[in-house]
Protein backbone atom coordinates (compact mmCIF):
# COMPACT_ATOMS: atom_id res chain seq x y z
CA UNK A 1 0.00 0.00 0.00
CA UNK A 2 2.88 2.35 0.69
CA UNK A 3 4.73 1.35 -2.46
CA UNK A 4 2.34 3.31 -4.65
CA UNK A 5 3.48 6.64 -3.27
CA UNK A 6 7.23 6.34 -3.81
CA UNK A 7 7.74 9.52 -5.75
CA UNK A 8 10.83 11.53 -4.72
CA UNK A 9 10.59 12.90 -1.21
CA UNK A 10 10.68 16.62 -0.56
CA UNK A 11 13.11 18.19 1.93
CA UNK A 12 10.35 18.47 4.51
CA UNK A 13 9.53 14.81 4.12
CA UNK A 14 13.17 13.85 4.59
CA UNK A 15 13.26 15.98 7.72
CA UNK A 16 10.13 14.22 9.00
CA UNK A 17 11.60 10.82 8.17
CA UNK A 18 14.94 11.67 9.77
CA UNK A 19 13.64 13.10 13.02
CA UNK A 20 11.05 10.34 13.45
CA UNK A 21 13.76 7.78 12.73
CA UNK A 22 16.13 9.19 15.34
CA UNK A 23 13.46 9.30 18.06
CA UNK A 24 12.22 5.79 17.30
CA UNK A 25 15.73 4.33 17.19
CA UNK A 26 16.81 5.98 20.43
CA UNK A 27 13.70 4.65 22.15
CA UNK A 28 14.00 1.19 20.67
CA UNK A 29 17.70 0.90 21.41
CA UNK A 30 17.36 -0.30 25.04
CA UNK A 31 15.47 -3.34 23.75
CA UNK A 32 18.22 -4.17 21.26
CA UNK A 33 20.88 -3.50 23.90
CA UNK A 34 19.10 -5.89 26.24
CA UNK A 35 19.11 -8.66 23.63
CA UNK A 36 22.80 -8.53 22.75
CA UNK A 37 23.91 -7.90 26.33
CA UNK A 38 22.30 -11.23 27.16
CA UNK A 39 25.15 -12.88 25.25
CA UNK A 40 27.99 -11.08 27.07
CA UNK A 41 29.97 -11.93 30.14
CA UNK A 42 29.57 -9.79 33.26
CA UNK A 43 33.00 -8.29 32.71
CA UNK A 44 32.11 -7.25 29.19
CA UNK A 45 28.87 -5.64 30.29
CA UNK A 46 30.88 -3.55 32.76
CA UNK A 47 33.84 -2.68 30.55
CA UNK A 48 32.20 -2.05 27.18
CA UNK A 49 28.48 -1.53 27.68
CA UNK A 50 27.81 -0.53 24.05
CA UNK A 51 29.94 -3.05 22.20
CA UNK A 52 28.58 -6.22 20.71
CA UNK A 53 29.69 -9.35 22.56
CA UNK A 54 33.19 -10.49 21.54
CA UNK A 55 31.97 -14.03 21.88
CA UNK A 56 28.27 -14.91 21.76
CA UNK A 57 27.63 -16.87 24.95
CA UNK A 58 24.53 -18.95 24.28
CA UNK A 59 25.26 -20.64 27.59
CA UNK A 60 23.86 -17.55 29.39
CA UNK A 61 20.42 -18.29 28.03
CA UNK A 62 20.56 -21.94 29.04
CA UNK A 63 21.80 -21.05 32.51
CA UNK A 64 19.07 -18.43 33.03
CA UNK A 65 16.45 -20.86 31.76
CA UNK A 66 17.53 -23.52 34.24
CA UNK A 67 18.37 -21.32 37.23
CA UNK A 68 15.21 -19.24 36.94
CA UNK A 69 12.94 -22.19 36.24
CA UNK A 70 11.66 -20.19 33.29
CA UNK A 71 10.04 -23.25 31.72
CA UNK A 72 7.63 -23.58 34.64
CA UNK A 73 6.94 -19.86 34.65
CA UNK A 74 6.14 -19.96 30.94
CA UNK A 75 3.79 -22.90 31.32
CA UNK A 76 2.00 -21.25 34.25
CA UNK A 77 1.63 -17.99 32.36
CA UNK A 78 0.31 -19.77 29.27
CA UNK A 79 -2.24 -21.76 31.28
CA UNK A 80 -3.48 -18.75 33.27
CA UNK A 81 -3.67 -16.56 30.17
CA UNK A 82 -5.47 -19.09 27.97
CA UNK A 83 -8.06 -19.87 30.65
CA UNK A 84 -8.67 -16.28 31.74
CA UNK A 85 -8.84 -14.89 28.22
CA UNK A 86 -11.19 -17.55 26.84
CA UNK A 87 -13.43 -17.23 29.86
CA UNK A 88 -13.51 -13.46 29.67
CA UNK A 89 -14.08 -13.16 25.91
CA UNK A 90 -16.74 -15.88 25.85
CA UNK A 91 -18.67 -14.46 28.81
CA UNK A 92 -18.35 -10.91 27.54
CA UNK A 93 -19.64 -11.91 24.11
CA UNK A 94 -22.60 -13.65 25.73
CA UNK A 95 -23.33 -10.62 27.86
CA UNK A 96 -22.97 -8.22 24.93
CA UNK A 97 -25.34 -10.46 22.94
CA UNK A 98 -27.86 -10.35 25.76
CA UNK A 99 -27.54 -6.58 26.21
CA UNK A 100 -28.08 -5.83 22.53
CA UNK A 101 -30.27 -8.63 21.15
CA UNK A 102 -32.49 -9.79 23.99
CA UNK A 103 -35.09 -8.10 26.14
CA UNK A 104 -35.13 -8.91 29.82
CA UNK A 105 -35.80 -7.03 33.04
CA UNK A 106 -32.80 -5.33 34.59
CA UNK A 107 -30.89 -5.19 31.33
CA UNK A 108 -29.84 -1.56 31.53
CA UNK A 109 -29.12 -1.80 35.24
CA UNK A 110 -26.83 -4.79 34.73
CA UNK A 111 -24.93 -3.02 32.00
CA UNK A 112 -24.52 0.11 34.14
CA UNK A 113 -23.23 -1.96 37.05
CA UNK A 114 -20.73 -3.65 34.77
CA UNK A 115 -19.42 -0.28 33.61
CA UNK A 116 -18.31 0.49 37.17
CA UNK A 117 -15.46 -1.87 36.41
CA UNK A 118 -14.11 0.47 33.74
CA UNK A 119 -13.02 3.11 36.21
CA UNK A 120 -12.04 1.06 39.27
CA UNK A 121 -8.33 0.66 39.90
CA UNK A 122 -7.45 -2.98 40.71
CA UNK A 123 -5.46 -2.03 43.86
CA UNK A 124 -8.73 -0.79 45.35
CA UNK A 125 -9.98 -4.34 45.97
CA UNK A 126 -6.69 -6.20 46.13
CA UNK A 127 -6.74 -6.75 49.88
CA UNK A 128 -10.39 -7.73 50.24
CA UNK A 129 -9.97 -10.03 47.26
CA UNK A 130 -6.98 -11.62 48.96
CA UNK A 131 -8.94 -12.52 52.10
CA UNK A 132 -11.90 -13.66 50.00
CA UNK A 133 -9.72 -15.98 47.90
CA UNK A 134 -8.15 -17.32 51.08
CA UNK A 135 -11.57 -18.16 52.49
CA UNK A 136 -12.45 -19.84 49.18
CA UNK A 137 -9.21 -21.86 49.44
CA UNK A 138 -8.07 -20.60 46.07
CA UNK A 139 -4.86 -18.87 47.14
CA UNK A 140 -1.75 -20.37 45.58
CA UNK A 141 -3.74 -21.97 42.79
CA UNK A 142 -3.96 -20.76 39.24
CA UNK A 143 -7.66 -20.08 39.75
CA UNK A 144 -6.69 -17.21 42.04
CA UNK A 145 -5.33 -15.52 38.93
CA UNK A 146 -7.74 -16.86 36.29
CA UNK A 147 -11.05 -15.91 37.91
CA UNK A 148 -10.16 -12.38 39.10
CA UNK A 149 -8.12 -11.84 35.94
CA UNK A 150 -11.11 -12.65 33.76
CA UNK A 151 -13.47 -10.68 35.98
CA UNK A 152 -11.34 -7.54 35.84
CA UNK A 153 -11.19 -7.60 32.03
CA UNK A 154 -14.94 -8.17 31.69
CA UNK A 155 -16.12 -4.57 31.89
CA UNK A 156 -13.83 -3.36 29.15
CA UNK A 157 -14.41 -6.41 26.93
CA UNK A 158 -18.19 -6.34 27.26
CA UNK A 159 -18.20 -2.61 26.62
CA UNK A 160 -16.36 -3.03 23.32
CA UNK A 161 -18.21 -6.18 22.26
CA UNK A 162 -21.49 -4.39 22.91
CA UNK A 163 -20.55 -1.49 20.66
CA UNK A 164 -19.52 -3.98 17.98
CA UNK A 165 -22.89 -5.71 18.26
CA UNK A 166 -24.62 -2.32 18.03
CA UNK A 167 -22.72 -1.54 14.84
CA UNK A 168 -24.20 -4.65 13.14
CA UNK A 169 -27.87 -4.66 12.24
CA UNK A 170 -29.82 -7.50 13.92
CA UNK A 171 -31.34 -8.64 10.60
CA UNK A 172 -29.52 -11.97 10.50
CA UNK A 173 -30.58 -12.90 14.01
CA UNK A 174 -34.18 -11.94 13.31
CA UNK A 175 -34.20 -14.00 10.11
CA UNK A 176 -32.83 -17.00 12.00
CA UNK A 177 -35.49 -16.56 14.66
CA UNK A 178 -38.22 -16.55 12.01
CA UNK A 179 -36.74 -19.80 10.70
CA UNK A 180 -37.37 -21.29 14.12
CA UNK A 181 -33.87 -21.24 15.61
CA UNK A 182 -33.73 -20.93 19.39
CA UNK A 183 -31.69 -18.29 21.15
CA UNK A 184 -28.81 -20.65 21.85
CA UNK A 185 -28.54 -21.62 18.17
CA UNK A 186 -28.76 -18.01 17.08
CA UNK A 187 -25.94 -17.07 19.42
CA UNK A 188 -23.58 -19.85 18.30
CA UNK A 189 -24.37 -20.10 14.62
CA UNK A 190 -25.32 -16.54 13.68
CA UNK A 191 -23.92 -14.01 16.15
CA UNK A 192 -20.57 -15.50 17.10
CA UNK A 193 -19.40 -15.93 13.48
CA UNK A 194 -20.45 -12.34 12.79
CA UNK A 195 -18.65 -10.76 15.72
CA UNK A 196 -15.64 -13.06 15.45
CA UNK A 197 -13.31 -10.27 14.22
CA UNK A 198 -14.08 -8.25 17.34
CA UNK A 199 -13.62 -11.33 19.51
CA UNK A 200 -10.23 -11.94 17.97
CA UNK A 201 -9.17 -8.39 18.73
CA UNK A 202 -10.36 -8.74 22.30
CA UNK A 203 -8.44 -12.01 22.60
CA UNK A 204 -5.25 -10.22 21.59
CA UNK A 205 -5.77 -7.23 23.90
CA UNK A 206 -6.79 -9.37 26.88
CA UNK A 207 -3.84 -11.67 26.32
CA UNK A 208 -1.47 -8.71 26.63
CA UNK A 209 -3.21 -7.56 29.81
CA UNK A 210 -3.44 -10.94 31.55
CA UNK A 211 0.01 -12.09 30.48
CA UNK A 212 1.59 -8.98 31.98
CA UNK A 213 -0.52 -8.79 35.13
CA UNK A 214 1.68 -8.25 38.20
CA UNK A 215 -0.28 -7.04 41.24
CA UNK A 216 -2.68 -9.98 41.66
CA UNK A 217 -0.03 -12.48 40.62
CA UNK A 218 2.29 -11.09 43.28
CA UNK A 219 -0.26 -11.20 46.11
CA UNK A 220 -2.36 -14.27 45.39
CA UNK A 221 0.36 -16.76 44.46
CA UNK A 222 3.36 -17.16 46.74
CA UNK A 223 4.24 -20.73 45.83
CA UNK A 224 7.21 -20.80 43.45
CA UNK A 225 5.77 -23.68 41.44
CA UNK A 226 2.61 -21.69 40.60
CA UNK A 227 4.12 -18.32 39.76
CA UNK A 228 3.69 -16.51 36.46
CA UNK A 229 6.39 -14.83 34.39
CA UNK A 230 6.15 -11.17 35.50
CA UNK A 231 6.50 -12.09 39.19
CA UNK A 232 9.14 -14.68 38.45
CA UNK A 233 11.16 -12.12 36.54
CA UNK A 234 11.03 -9.55 39.33
CA UNK A 235 12.10 -12.12 41.90
CA UNK A 236 14.79 -13.52 39.65
CA UNK A 237 16.30 -10.07 39.13
CA UNK A 238 16.17 -9.52 42.88
CA UNK A 239 18.05 -12.74 43.69
CA UNK A 240 20.66 -12.31 40.98
CA UNK A 241 20.95 -8.54 41.00
CA UNK A 242 24.72 -8.62 40.67
CA UNK A 243 24.86 -11.26 37.95
CA UNK A 244 24.04 -8.94 35.08
CA UNK A 245 24.46 -11.35 32.20
CA UNK A 246 22.07 -13.80 33.84
CA UNK A 247 19.36 -11.19 34.36
CA UNK A 248 19.79 -9.88 30.82
CA UNK A 249 19.45 -13.43 29.54
CA UNK A 250 16.25 -13.96 31.54
CA UNK A 251 14.90 -10.63 30.28
CA UNK A 252 15.65 -11.57 26.69
CA UNK A 253 14.06 -14.99 27.04
CA UNK A 254 10.89 -13.56 28.50
CA UNK A 255 10.46 -10.56 26.19
CA UNK A 256 11.73 -11.55 22.76
CA UNK A 257 9.03 -14.17 22.05
CA UNK A 258 6.38 -11.60 23.03
CA UNK A 259 7.92 -8.98 20.75
CA UNK A 260 8.04 -11.44 17.83
CA UNK A 261 4.44 -12.44 18.44
CA UNK A 262 3.50 -8.77 18.54
CA UNK A 263 5.18 -7.99 15.23
CA UNK A 264 3.28 -10.92 13.66
CA UNK A 265 -0.09 -9.91 15.14
CA UNK A 266 0.53 -6.16 14.90
CA UNK A 267 -2.58 -5.53 12.81
CA UNK A 268 -4.93 -7.01 15.38
CA UNK A 269 -3.28 -5.24 18.29
CA UNK A 270 -3.53 -1.89 16.62
CA UNK A 271 -7.04 -2.44 15.28
CA UNK A 272 -8.15 -3.31 18.78
CA UNK A 273 -6.65 -0.24 20.35
CA UNK A 274 -8.18 2.08 17.82
CA UNK A 275 -11.56 0.57 18.61
CA UNK A 276 -10.96 1.39 22.28
CA UNK A 277 -10.68 5.09 21.73
CA UNK A 278 -13.38 5.47 19.13
CA UNK A 279 -16.84 6.71 20.20
Amino acid sequence: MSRATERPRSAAEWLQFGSAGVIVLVMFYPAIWMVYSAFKSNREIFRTPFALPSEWKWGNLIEAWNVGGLGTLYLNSVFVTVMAVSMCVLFATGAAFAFTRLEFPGRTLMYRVLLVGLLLPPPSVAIALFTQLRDMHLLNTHWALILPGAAWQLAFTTFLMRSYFLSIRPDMEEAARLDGANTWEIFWHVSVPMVWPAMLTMIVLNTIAVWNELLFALLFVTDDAQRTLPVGLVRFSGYHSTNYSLVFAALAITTVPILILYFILQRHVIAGLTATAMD
Partner: protein
Amino acid sequence: MLFAAPAMLLFATFVLLPLGASVYYAFTYWDGFSAPRWAGFANFARALTDPTFLMSFVHVVLYILATLVFEVSFGLFMAVLLNSDRRGFSLMRGMFFAPVVLSMSAAGVLWKFVLDYRTGLLNSTLRSVGLGDWAQPWLAQPETALLFICIVSGWKYAGFYMVIFFAALRRIPRNLYEAAKLDGANGTQQFFAITLPMLKQNVIVCILLAVTGGFAGFDLFFTMTNGQPFGATEVPATWIIKQAFDQNQIGYGVALTVVLTVVVSVISIAYLKISERGHVTRY
Protein backbone atom coordinates in the same frame (compact mmCIF):
# COMPACT_ATOMS: atom_id res chain seq x y z
CA MET B 1 -30.69 -13.10 30.70
CA LEU B 2 -29.04 -16.50 30.75
CA PHE B 3 -26.42 -15.18 28.38
CA ALA B 4 -25.49 -12.33 30.66
CA ALA B 5 -25.48 -14.54 33.75
CA PRO B 6 -21.94 -16.01 33.61
CA ALA B 7 -20.40 -12.58 33.07
CA MET B 8 -22.48 -10.94 35.79
CA LEU B 9 -21.77 -13.78 38.20
CA LEU B 10 -18.03 -13.62 37.67
CA PHE B 11 -18.04 -9.84 37.87
CA ALA B 12 -20.14 -9.83 41.04
CA THR B 13 -17.95 -12.41 42.77
CA PHE B 14 -14.54 -10.98 42.02
CA VAL B 15 -15.18 -7.26 41.60
CA LEU B 16 -18.35 -6.20 43.42
CA LEU B 17 -18.15 -8.57 46.39
CA PRO B 18 -14.59 -7.57 47.40
CA LEU B 19 -15.53 -3.96 46.79
CA GLY B 20 -18.45 -4.29 49.21
CA ALA B 21 -16.36 -6.24 51.70
CA SER B 22 -13.74 -3.49 51.54
CA VAL B 23 -16.23 -0.92 52.72
CA TYR B 24 -17.08 -3.09 55.73
CA TYR B 25 -13.50 -4.04 56.64
CA ALA B 26 -12.47 -0.41 56.38
CA PHE B 27 -14.43 0.24 59.58
CA THR B 28 -12.70 -2.51 61.53
CA TYR B 29 -9.42 -3.33 63.21
CA TRP B 30 -8.36 -6.55 61.57
CA ASP B 31 -5.13 -8.46 61.18
CA GLY B 32 -6.69 -10.82 58.63
CA PHE B 33 -6.91 -13.83 60.93
CA SER B 34 -8.81 -13.12 64.16
CA ALA B 35 -12.33 -11.71 64.10
CA PRO B 36 -12.54 -8.10 62.90
CA ARG B 37 -13.30 -5.55 65.66
CA TRP B 38 -15.46 -2.52 64.92
CA ALA B 39 -13.32 0.58 64.68
CA GLY B 40 -15.69 3.28 63.48
CA PHE B 41 -13.88 5.98 61.61
CA ALA B 42 -10.55 5.35 63.34
CA ASN B 43 -8.88 3.96 60.20
CA PHE B 44 -9.97 6.92 58.14
CA ALA B 45 -8.83 9.39 60.75
CA ARG B 46 -5.47 7.66 60.76
CA ALA B 47 -5.32 7.70 56.96
CA LEU B 48 -5.84 11.45 56.87
CA THR B 49 -2.97 11.99 59.29
CA ASP B 50 -0.65 9.41 57.73
CA PRO B 51 2.05 11.60 56.18
CA THR B 52 3.32 8.88 53.84
CA PHE B 53 -0.18 8.19 52.55
CA LEU B 54 -0.83 11.87 51.93
CA MET B 55 2.53 12.26 50.21
CA SER B 56 1.72 9.24 48.07
CA PHE B 57 -1.16 11.20 46.59
CA VAL B 58 1.16 14.10 45.85
CA HIS B 59 3.49 11.69 44.07
CA VAL B 60 0.72 10.06 42.08
CA VAL B 61 -0.64 13.44 41.01
CA LEU B 62 2.84 14.48 39.85
CA TYR B 63 3.09 11.15 38.07
CA ILE B 64 -0.25 11.67 36.31
CA LEU B 65 0.74 15.20 35.25
CA ALA B 66 3.99 13.76 33.89
CA THR B 67 2.12 11.05 31.99
CA LEU B 68 0.04 13.77 30.35
CA VAL B 69 3.30 15.21 29.02
CA PHE B 70 5.42 12.10 28.36
CA GLU B 71 2.59 9.83 27.24
CA VAL B 72 -0.42 11.75 25.94
CA SER B 73 1.29 14.86 24.50
CA PHE B 74 4.36 13.03 23.28
CA GLY B 75 2.11 10.33 21.80
CA LEU B 76 0.14 12.99 19.95
CA PHE B 77 3.35 14.59 18.70
CA MET B 78 4.65 11.24 17.45
CA ALA B 79 1.31 10.43 15.82
CA VAL B 80 1.62 13.61 13.76
CA LEU B 81 5.29 12.95 13.03
CA LEU B 82 4.73 9.32 12.02
CA ASN B 83 1.66 10.10 9.92
CA SER B 84 2.95 9.32 6.45
CA ASP B 85 2.40 6.67 3.79
CA ARG B 86 6.07 6.69 2.87
CA ARG B 87 8.13 3.53 3.13
CA GLY B 88 9.52 2.92 6.59
CA PHE B 89 6.85 4.74 8.56
CA SER B 90 4.74 1.68 9.16
CA LEU B 91 7.76 -0.10 10.61
CA MET B 92 8.61 2.91 12.77
CA ARG B 93 5.06 2.99 14.14
CA GLY B 94 5.37 -0.69 14.94
CA MET B 95 8.66 -0.17 16.75
CA PHE B 96 7.41 2.86 18.63
CA PHE B 97 4.43 0.85 19.88
CA ALA B 98 6.43 -2.26 20.79
CA PRO B 99 7.13 -1.36 24.47
CA VAL B 100 3.37 -1.32 25.13
CA VAL B 101 3.17 -5.11 24.77
CA LEU B 102 6.03 -5.74 27.18
CA SER B 103 5.21 -6.40 30.79
CA MET B 104 5.77 -3.59 33.26
CA SER B 105 8.07 -5.85 35.24
CA ALA B 106 10.26 -6.52 32.21
CA ALA B 107 10.31 -2.80 31.42
CA GLY B 108 11.16 -1.98 35.03
CA VAL B 109 14.00 -4.49 35.25
CA LEU B 110 15.39 -3.39 31.89
CA TRP B 111 15.35 0.29 32.85
CA LYS B 112 16.99 -0.36 36.18
CA PHE B 113 19.93 -1.47 34.07
CA VAL B 114 19.71 1.51 31.76
CA LEU B 115 19.72 3.86 34.76
CA ASP B 116 22.30 1.97 36.80
CA TYR B 117 24.98 4.27 38.21
CA ARG B 118 28.06 2.28 37.27
CA THR B 119 27.20 0.35 34.15
CA GLY B 120 23.92 1.88 32.99
CA LEU B 121 23.40 2.92 29.42
CA LEU B 122 22.57 6.51 30.37
CA ASN B 123 25.65 7.16 32.46
CA SER B 124 27.86 5.31 29.98
CA THR B 125 26.57 7.59 27.24
CA LEU B 126 27.28 10.67 29.34
CA ARG B 127 30.81 9.46 30.12
CA SER B 128 31.57 8.60 26.52
CA VAL B 129 30.72 12.13 25.37
CA GLY B 130 32.83 13.66 28.14
CA LEU B 131 29.98 14.57 30.46
CA GLY B 132 30.94 12.04 33.10
CA ASP B 133 30.32 14.64 35.83
CA TRP B 134 26.63 14.57 34.98
CA ALA B 135 26.34 10.88 35.78
CA GLN B 136 23.97 10.36 38.69
CA PRO B 137 22.53 7.43 40.63
CA TRP B 138 19.22 8.32 38.99
CA LEU B 139 16.96 5.95 40.89
CA ALA B 140 18.77 6.18 44.20
CA GLN B 141 18.32 9.87 44.89
CA PRO B 142 14.97 11.39 45.87
CA GLU B 143 15.29 14.34 43.48
CA THR B 144 15.40 12.27 40.31
CA ALA B 145 13.80 8.90 41.13
CA LEU B 146 10.19 9.91 40.50
CA LEU B 147 11.11 11.82 37.36
CA PHE B 148 12.79 8.79 35.86
CA ILE B 149 9.89 6.51 36.69
CA CYS B 150 7.71 8.98 34.79
CA ILE B 151 10.11 8.88 31.86
CA VAL B 152 10.12 5.08 31.78
CA SER B 153 6.34 5.12 31.95
CA GLY B 154 6.38 7.49 28.99
CA TRP B 155 8.74 5.20 27.11
CA LYS B 156 6.34 2.34 27.68
CA TYR B 157 3.00 3.99 27.00
CA ALA B 158 3.58 6.81 24.50
CA GLY B 159 3.08 4.24 21.74
CA PHE B 160 -0.38 3.43 23.06
CA TYR B 161 -1.56 7.04 22.75
CA MET B 162 0.28 7.40 19.44
CA VAL B 163 -1.80 4.60 17.93
CA ILE B 164 -5.06 6.04 19.19
CA PHE B 165 -4.25 9.52 17.86
CA PHE B 166 -2.86 8.11 14.64
CA ALA B 167 -6.11 6.30 13.86
CA ALA B 168 -8.05 9.48 14.56
CA LEU B 169 -5.71 11.58 12.40
CA ARG B 170 -6.45 9.30 9.47
CA ARG B 171 -10.13 10.12 9.71
CA ILE B 172 -9.69 13.88 9.37
CA PRO B 173 -10.77 14.81 5.84
CA ARG B 174 -7.79 15.80 3.68
CA ASN B 175 -9.62 18.69 2.05
CA LEU B 176 -9.57 20.61 5.32
CA TYR B 177 -5.78 20.76 5.10
CA GLU B 178 -5.87 21.63 1.41
CA ALA B 179 -8.22 24.50 2.13
CA ALA B 180 -5.95 25.68 4.94
CA LYS B 181 -2.92 25.54 2.65
CA LEU B 182 -4.72 27.68 0.08
CA ASP B 183 -5.40 30.17 2.83
CA GLY B 184 -1.67 30.21 3.55
CA ALA B 185 -1.64 28.39 6.89
CA ASN B 186 1.69 26.78 7.81
CA GLY B 187 2.15 23.41 9.50
CA THR B 188 1.87 24.71 13.05
CA GLN B 189 -1.21 26.77 12.27
CA GLN B 190 -2.81 23.76 10.61
CA PHE B 191 -2.12 21.68 13.70
CA PHE B 192 -3.80 24.11 16.07
CA ALA B 193 -6.63 25.14 13.74
CA ILE B 194 -7.57 21.72 12.34
CA THR B 195 -5.82 18.74 13.90
CA LEU B 196 -6.26 19.56 17.57
CA PRO B 197 -9.96 20.55 17.40
CA MET B 198 -10.72 17.45 15.33
CA LEU B 199 -9.02 15.25 17.91
CA LYS B 200 -10.76 16.85 20.86
CA GLN B 201 -12.84 13.79 21.64
CA ASN B 202 -9.81 11.50 21.57
CA VAL B 203 -7.85 13.85 23.79
CA ILE B 204 -10.64 13.76 26.36
CA VAL B 205 -10.73 9.95 26.36
CA CYS B 206 -6.94 9.71 26.54
CA ILE B 207 -6.75 12.07 29.52
CA LEU B 208 -9.35 9.96 31.32
CA LEU B 209 -7.37 6.80 30.57
CA ALA B 210 -4.17 8.45 31.83
CA VAL B 211 -5.80 9.65 35.05
CA THR B 212 -7.54 6.40 35.99
CA GLY B 213 -4.53 4.38 34.87
CA GLY B 214 -2.21 6.64 36.86
CA PHE B 215 -4.05 6.11 40.14
CA ALA B 216 -3.86 2.36 39.57
CA GLY B 217 -0.12 2.65 38.94
CA PHE B 218 1.73 -0.06 40.81
CA ASP B 219 3.83 -2.34 38.61
CA LEU B 220 6.51 0.11 37.57
CA PHE B 221 6.85 1.65 41.02
CA PHE B 222 7.07 -1.76 42.64
CA THR B 223 9.62 -3.09 40.17
CA MET B 224 11.88 -0.06 40.00
CA THR B 225 11.99 1.48 43.47
CA ASN B 226 9.11 0.20 45.63
CA GLY B 227 8.77 3.58 47.28
CA GLN B 228 12.48 4.18 47.81
CA PRO B 229 14.60 6.29 48.17
CA PHE B 230 13.23 7.71 51.45
CA GLY B 231 9.62 7.33 50.34
CA ALA B 232 10.18 9.66 47.37
CA THR B 233 8.35 7.35 44.98
CA GLU B 234 5.69 6.00 47.32
CA VAL B 235 2.30 5.92 45.56
CA PRO B 236 -1.04 4.82 47.07
CA ALA B 237 -0.87 1.31 45.61
CA THR B 238 2.60 0.49 46.92
CA TRP B 239 1.85 1.96 50.36
CA ILE B 240 -1.44 0.06 50.64
CA ILE B 241 0.26 -3.24 49.86
CA LYS B 242 2.94 -2.55 52.46
CA GLN B 243 0.40 -1.71 55.16
CA ALA B 244 -1.73 -4.77 54.53
CA PHE B 245 0.83 -7.45 53.77
CA ASP B 246 4.06 -6.41 55.48
CA GLN B 247 2.42 -4.98 58.60
CA ASN B 248 -0.64 -7.25 58.81
CA GLN B 249 -2.96 -4.30 59.21
CA ILE B 250 -5.62 -5.51 56.85
CA GLY B 251 -8.27 -3.20 58.29
CA TYR B 252 -6.13 -0.12 57.85
CA GLY B 253 -4.94 -1.19 54.39
CA VAL B 254 -8.51 -1.71 53.28
CA ALA B 255 -9.48 1.73 54.54
CA LEU B 256 -6.73 3.16 52.38
CA THR B 257 -8.12 1.28 49.34
CA VAL B 258 -11.54 2.76 50.04
CA VAL B 259 -10.06 6.26 50.13
CA LEU B 260 -8.33 5.53 46.83
CA THR B 261 -11.55 4.23 45.25
CA VAL B 262 -13.50 7.28 46.38
CA VAL B 263 -10.84 9.69 45.09
CA VAL B 264 -10.65 7.99 41.68
CA SER B 265 -14.43 7.77 41.32
CA VAL B 266 -15.01 11.39 42.28
CA ILE B 267 -12.32 12.64 39.91
CA SER B 268 -13.44 10.54 36.95
CA ILE B 269 -17.12 11.31 37.38
CA ALA B 270 -16.40 15.02 37.76
CA TYR B 271 -14.17 14.86 34.71
CA LEU B 272 -16.84 13.08 32.66
CA LYS B 273 -19.47 15.60 33.76
CA ILE B 274 -17.25 18.52 32.76
CA SER B 275 -16.32 17.04 29.42
CA GLU B 276 -19.95 16.11 28.71
CA ARG B 277 -20.64 19.80 28.66
CA GLY B 278 -18.47 19.82 25.58
CA HIS B 279 -21.14 17.39 24.26
CA VAL B 280 -18.86 14.38 24.56
CA THR B 281 -20.34 11.22 25.96
CA ARG B 282 -18.49 8.01 26.25
CA TYR B 283 -20.45 5.86 28.61
